[in-house]
């Protein structure tokens, strides 16, 4: 089957505009993560969804960032009033979690966001 997909692949926006980034996880995967990666840097955790549990939002850098996951599948990351420091690659990953066992994360190709 298909892997994790993200859209758009590239997004250029003007400072102050809102953007929405989409992630389609692998079907059946209950866990979904959003990360941010600046050039040459490591992965910065943003938010984690696990099944029907309340999401772990501890990594969101400010209240301009929000995310939702509808029907336990597709997720949207929204950045309001974008700033130049929001420019980065936004990566989504999903994994299967069952009975306490954890499997690997499958990453999407990312969305490269550029804020002018």
């Amino acid at each position: 089957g298909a892997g994790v997909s993200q859209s758009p692949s590239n997004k250029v926006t003007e400072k102050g505009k809102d953007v929405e980034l989409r992630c389609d996880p692998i079907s059946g995967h209950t866990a979904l993560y959003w990360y941010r990666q600046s050039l040459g840097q490591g992965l910065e955790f943003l938010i984690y969804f696990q099944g029907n549990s309340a999401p772990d939002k501890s990594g969101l850098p400010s209240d301009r960032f929000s995310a939702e996951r509808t029907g336990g599948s597709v997720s949207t990351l929204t950045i309001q009033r974008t700033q130049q420091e929001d420019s980065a690659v936004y990566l989504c990953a999903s994994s299967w979690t069952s009975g306490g066992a954890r499997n690997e994360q499958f990453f999407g190709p990312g969305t490269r966001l550029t804020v002018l």
Partner: protein
Amino acid sequence: SQKIEQNSEALNIQEGKTATLTCNYTNYSPAYLQWYRQDPGRGPVFLLLIRENEKEKRKERLKVTFDTTLKQSLFHITASQPADSATYLCALDKLNDKIIFGKGTRLHILP
């Protein structure tokens, strides 16, 4: 606070030699430890997973060790090839909590 450390400097290894990457952690008791590879412009790709009760795991030219006493994992690539050049990330999984990634180590295999 929880902390994961990987070699911050790039690692240069001669082709054919064994490359060894280190992942150290503090204030954490992971049930699993994972290793990923990331190439420029791409998302990380899973390589290996090792459980807390396993000392060693192998997959082809890859070997991972996990020492919960030292709080350290070593990742080895034997008979290294230029195609192994990439950034390698370790990730800690405590179950019932989010997975945490290290910042990664850049590996260059020199022909």
